């Protein structure tokens, strides 16, 4: 029972962290919030490790902390350091921040509703984290849809990835370590490439608004 309560609360804290990321507009703000979210995620991973007793998951937790909370923010900071403030702040998303916070709450409700049938039959780790991971997934996608700036779309990607990671960890109690490390390298490379792309987009259009990419279409 006590275990269950700890799980519930950690899931709650992860959701709070996610909302902190969604509700921020400035680049530095959401990056800090993302760092916090990754730390929470690492803690949750460690928690799962201690409950299931699989030592490999501890390594995954450590890697999460190292890569997501330290390396990725560093890389993003370094590459975007040259960009001006206007480029880095989400000024006018398609849907206002307040509406997107409310819609994200609805998405959480939706994912709980969607996974309700599955989670009854399984153990407490899955039933706690499955809906949370699905909601991170949906929120990530939603953030990517409504943001205009390429840089803020990366937020969505990162939230989505965290959701996927949690999904995999919670459902399978740890993928094989090799695969896990492969995924980490993958996301790292993905971030580097997107960061480089972003600075190229900025160089070409003098803006990071993805709306400008429409002009590349062959009419």
């Amino acid at each position, binding site marked *: 029972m006590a275990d269950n309560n700890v799980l519930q609360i950690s899931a709650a804290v992860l959701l709070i962290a996610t909302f902190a990321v969604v509700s921020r507009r400035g680049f530095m703000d959401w990056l800090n919030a993302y760092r916090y979210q990754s730390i929470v995620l690492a803690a949750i991973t460690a928690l799962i490790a201690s409950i299931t007793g699989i030592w490999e998951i501890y390594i995954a937790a450590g890697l999460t902390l190292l890569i997501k909370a330290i390396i990725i923010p560093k890389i993003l900071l370094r590459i975007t350091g040259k960009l001006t403030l206007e480029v880095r702040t989400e000024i006018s998303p398609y849907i206002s921040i307040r509406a997107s916070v409310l819609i994200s709450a*609805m998405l959480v409700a939706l994912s709980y509703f969607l996974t309700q049938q599955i989670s009854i039959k399984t153990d407490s780790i899955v039933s706690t984290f499955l809906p949370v991971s699905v909601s991170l997934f949906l929120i990530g996608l939603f953030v990517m849809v409504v943001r205009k700036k390429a840089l803020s779309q990366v937020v969505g990607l990162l939230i989505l990835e965290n959701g996927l990671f949690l999904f995999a960890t919670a459902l399978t109690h740890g993928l094989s370590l090799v695969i896990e490390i492969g995924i980490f390298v993958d996301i790292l490379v993905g971030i580097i490439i997107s960061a480089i792309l972003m600075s190229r987009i900025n160089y070409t259009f003098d803006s990071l608004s993805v709306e400008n990419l429409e002009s590349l279409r062959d009419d």
Partner: protein
Amino acid sequence: MNYALLLLQMTITLFLGGSAVSLILGGKKHASLVIFSLSAAASLCAIAFASNQFLSDGPTRFSFKEIFPLVGFDVLVDNTCAFFIFLIGVISLAVSVYSIGYAKKYGKISSFGFLFNFFIVSMILVTVSNNVFSFLIFWELMSLTSFFLVIYEHESQNNRKAAINYLVMTHFGTAFIATAFLLSFVQTGSFSFDSFRQLGSNSIFKDAIFVFALIGFGTKAGMMPFHTWLPQAHPAAPSNVSALMSAVMLKIAIYGMMRFLFDFNNISSPDNAWWGLLMIAFGAVSSVFGILYAVVEKDIKRGLAFSSIENVGLIFMGLGLTVVFASYDLRALSAFALMATMYHVINHAIFKSLLFMGAGSVQFATHTKDMEKLGGLIKKMPWTALLFLIGCLAISGLPPFNGFVSEWMLLQSFLLTSQVPDTLLQISIAIASLAFALTIGISVATFVRLFGISFLSKPRSELAAHIREVPRSMLAGKSIVAALAIILGIMPFVGINLVSISFGLSGVQANPFAPLVSDTHDPIYASISMPTVLILLGCVSVGAFGFVRAIGGKTQKITSSTWDCGFGSLSERMQYTASSVSYPLRIIFRFLFRPTLQIQKELEHSSSNYEKRSVALTQSTEDIFEQKLYRSIISASIAFFGKIRLVQTGKVNAYVLYVMLILVVLLIYVRLQ
């Protein structure tokens, strides 16, 4: 001795007498006194009739064969019916007293008095009808008399438009109601309500009947998106009529809905839960949109009309909760939700009639209902202002007034949905409760603005500067309902007992101090006792006054001008206006209002863009339903009928051709059968 029949006959006779007298006396000097005293007497009879029914054991039945020889006019008066008659009686009593003074605005009132009395009597007859024919006939009579009353001030183009719109929409609703009745008739083969009752939940069309009834009665009650007639008709009608329409006529629609929901049906299976959810959804939309349009409205009466839509929304939400609880067989909770809803029905009738009469007094004194032209009325019309303030406090749901009690009960009903055994439903209702709370929040803003701009600070135009307090009869009419608003606020057991007796609920309280409890489980879930709250307020105010006096001693009051930052005197044009007060809310809900802003500049010299002689700013908001939904339907139907006109060529040959074609098609059809 049958008092019931006698009282009913007296009520009807007195109202009809009022109509007849007004036709005869019409233009005489004291005509209004005679006519409306008769209406007031008739209203007292109606109250007596309802009370008599409450005291008697079971439903009372009469049959008047002679009125409608073919189908008969069956009367069944049960307690539900008596509840609504009681409501009609109380409100029409207040409005009749008010009208004695108000009708002086019009010189000759023969047709007005005639229609006024007929309108009230037709509402009473609708509620007592026990078969489809008489119900629909009186329903139609009620619609038509109110239509003529809306168009009474027909000099204005806008009023004529509003009345026509009302006529169309009300018949749209009646068509749906008639369909609902017909679907029941198809199964029973009888037009009597008794047979519908026996049909109960065995009806095969019950879902369809529910939807038709909801749309039909919803149209009459002003449920969004079928509300468009309401914000036009209420301001157009004379204020005493608006008070009756908003306070009582909308409730007759609720009465009809209740007959269909709880009388012709027996809700007890979870299959019916979606009915409740649908009503909650409609209610949520009506209340939020209604109050949002009310908060930006500059016309007092239009603002009140939108607020009626809001309150109807709250009532529908309450009915929806009742249905949800009933469908999961949570009888006690369902009874509590029904009590909350009906308490709100009474309350809305009381404070809305008070506010409409107040708006009428403002119009009577200043000849305008535009808030931007008012201001400072509290100094010239102190009593009207006080009564209007009571109405505003009550409708904003603040303690210790009646609105608070019913809104507290409705909020508790929302909280009690945690006992409904369906997670999806629980969460949807929790989210719908956001709409309810937002509505309450914005309604406080609406009425602060309405009262603050119209009655406080300095007059904004000449119209509001030289005025007098309205005649005493108008104040008396308003005082009746204002007193009720206070009584039902500090002594909720009066209303609770009334509702409990009317709907057969087990909540009768004898002790006024006994707390009102929402859920009777052991540790106390929630409870209030308004008399205690009032006593606390009283003790605290005595204590506070004594303490401040003891510490501070006697001090003087020095009157001076408002602080003007040292720039010289403030003029009344520097005050905040009605539009500027609601500006922040208008900006936040911009997506809904689609405000249009036009700035016209007149330049001093054509060469310079900066020196302006004058700048005019016009801003307007539009009803999104009217704009998006109705206009597109109207333009589509115009286009459709434009196409049909092609068929109408005007040549005889063509018409013969149509006849021939139809004949051939019919023959082929018959052959294929």
